[in-house]
């Protein structure tokens, strides 16, 4: 199982029956494929849809039916459509149980940076700033280090922020890290890695939970 799949499978276990969830583009979208059997979850897409279904079969894409990543999707029974201002009213208004996003950097205060690298072309924040400001629980799903082996979990973000003190949990292929008022706490650890090794690969200071659990994936 590769890193992204490990992360997606672990977060899928955190999605509970009855949740309304927004999944970001990329890795977070994979979570929908690994949901536990028998739970009823409604996926929101911020371009104006509740009840997002899987991608359509080849040749059956409807150009009027896309997700926020501009990919064709299908509808599940009971889905609904609405305009952008209403979509963000439900996001900002605290109606989403969970928002899962990717990140470039997260820090000890739960600050998130995922939209801009100064000096490079800025493509825009899209809906990310509203999602992190409004969702009841914000989970960052990302690989622990950059391709160059640098920590993405820092004492303090160096890139421009997407949100200040907005992240509740960070999930990487190495484990589950909770953002608490006392800093970052490693609560679950993946198979095959020791807590000291996770800390060595993390710039931010991690407190190892006295109740540290194995990170189970489905």
């Amino acid at each position, binding site marked *: 199982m590769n890193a992204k799949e490990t992360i997606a499978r672990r977060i899928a276990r955190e999605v509970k029956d009855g949740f309304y969830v927004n999944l970001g583009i990329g890795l977070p979208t994979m979570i929908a494929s690994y949901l536990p059997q028998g739970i009823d979850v409604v996926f929101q*897409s*911020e*371009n*104006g*849809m509740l009840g997002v279904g899987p991608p359509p079969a080849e040749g059956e*894409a*409807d*150009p*009027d*039916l*896309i*997700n*926020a*990543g*501009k*990919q*064709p999707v299908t*509808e599940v029974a009971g889905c609904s*459509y*609405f*305009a*952008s*201002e209403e*979509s*963000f*009213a439900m*996001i*900002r208004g605290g109606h989403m149980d969970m928002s899962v996003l990717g990140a470039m950097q997260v820090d000890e205060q739960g*600050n998130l940076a995922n939209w*801009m690298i100064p000096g490079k*072309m*800025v*493509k*825009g*924040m*899209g*809906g*990310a*700033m*509203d999602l992190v*400001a*409004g969702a009841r629980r914000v989970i960052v799903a990302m690989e622990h280090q950059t391709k160059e082996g640098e920590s993405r979990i820092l004492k303090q973000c160096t890139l*421009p*922020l*997407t*949100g*200040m*003190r907005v992240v509740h949990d960070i999930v990487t292929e190495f484990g589950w890290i909770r953002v608490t008022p006392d800093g970052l706490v490693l609560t679950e650890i993946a198979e095959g890695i020791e807590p000291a090794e996770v800390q060595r690969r993390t710039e931010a200071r991690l407190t190892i939970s006295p109740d540290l659990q194995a990170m189970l994936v489905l």
Partner: protein
Amino acid sequence: MNKVVESAEAAVADIAPGSTIMLGGFGLCGIPENLIAALVKRRITGLHTISNNMGVDGFGMGLMLEAGMIASHIGSYVGENRRLEKMVISGELNLTLVPQGTLAERIRAGGAGIPAFYTPTGLGTIVAEGKETRQIGDRTYVLETALRADVALVKAWKGDRLGNLVYRRTARNFNPAMATAAKLTIAEVEQLVDPGELDPDHIVTPGIYVKRVVVGESYVKPIESAFIKAKQGGAA
């Protein structure tokens, strides 16, 4: 009352250079293809556009950009347009990025007579720089101002001659809010129906907001993810 105009060309014939124009759509989904094409034929310049995205190279608002018509743009995500990138870097185009929900609410507010509002979005980020903030209860909010435009070009699925509109699937997006926030709203519809045919309970945009209705002649409706992949494949 008959708001139907005979062609997209006639519908946009009096839009002045330098106008502020809102354009509906999310990526290439739900964009007024025919109105954009008619505007591109006129090649008016100095336009200030407000739209969530900026089309892609070779389609949608990308065509307006290529024709040198746009002076400034307000949007939330412009990642699919390389020409835009060059123009922003060279200073030919003034780009303002706004969080998507803030953009939608600023337009809604513009149409609803609300001059400004407080939002939690963007607090502590560069989006809030230079803006008034205020603590209400236990949270701090950023003051954002309403957006209005001279013209809104929107796309609906069905409409009648009174300007009542309904949309289809996720092609709704920014269209209904923009329809309310401009002095002149022009709606492009796929199907023109007789008054009374649309269930009054289902009308999303009541006709009061719409000044002109035009029937789109043909639709390409590219799916953006596939369109970009095909273009990249062709260029390789």
